[in-house]
């Protein structure tokens, strides 16, 4: 599985990679530090199977990235991995086309379940 992890925190990107390993997900991981970097990567190379994306980031946040993915007709699945998870945010994420929203901190199993559900 090809995974693009988008988070401005190097520590959080490491935590997500560790969770993928712990969950037994064989992932080819690439990384971006914000939505703009991620969009550039998605426009310029082969698409990942899933984008695991933070919500609150400088330059371009996760929701804006998701909207730009839609505008650019990029066919990729995106799930949010975020410290904020109010019902309003979940609703915004769903309406924008996100596959899921996982709250930090999360267990490897929780991440695995969401990835398995993508089919």
């Amino acid at each position, binding site marked *: 599985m090809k995974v693009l992890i988008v988070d401005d925190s190097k520590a*959080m990107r*490491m*935590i997500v990679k560790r969770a993928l390993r712990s969950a037994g997900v064989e992932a080819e991981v690439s990384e971006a530090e914000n939505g703009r970097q991620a969009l550039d990567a998605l426009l310029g190379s082969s698409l990942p199977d899933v984008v695991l994306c933070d919500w609150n980031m400088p330059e371009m946040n996760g929701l804006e990235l998701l909207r730009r993915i839609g505008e650019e007709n990029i066919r990729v699945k995106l799930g949010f991995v975020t410290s904020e998870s109010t019902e309003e945010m979940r609703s915004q994420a769903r309406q924008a086309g996100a596959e899921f929203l996982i709250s*930090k901190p999360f267990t490897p199993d929780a991440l695995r379940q969401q990835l398995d559900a993508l089919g």
Partner: protein
Amino acid sequence: MHSADGDSGVDAWRGAVRTASEDVLAGLGMAGIEVRERGAFRVSQGGCGSLISLVNDDVALQLAFMSDERGARFLAAAMLGLDDGELDTELVADALCELANMVGGLVKSHVTARTTGLRLGLPIHVDGAAVPPTGAVGFELDFTVSGHPLRVGVCASAP
């Protein structure tokens, strides 16, 4: 949290911050968590940590997470699943910022029903001292995580 809120306002924030901090530390796989409630948020010197803000039209809340150098490295290593020797200063700072981000996000979730429109800021690293703004009111929680100190200071002022 200010006097207009009365004690119940402070207690509600204290409860939300305590619960969120405990949940995040436990969720990150940390053990041996103890907490002691202290009085007002005062200057936390001689350490390193992180700050994050929660702001709406009525209140500007600042959460500070401070430890000593050994404690900060312990927390970072535990969060990232690394040995101490694999850490550098930047990674420790980043991990502490992420800790603030997680707790701040969870606090926001806990209080959303009664405090609307809160916006979570981006975390910043603190090296040396966390100083509450003049006139701010708040409280401190002293956590111990496997014997390492983590002081969570919370203060509120007008936005």
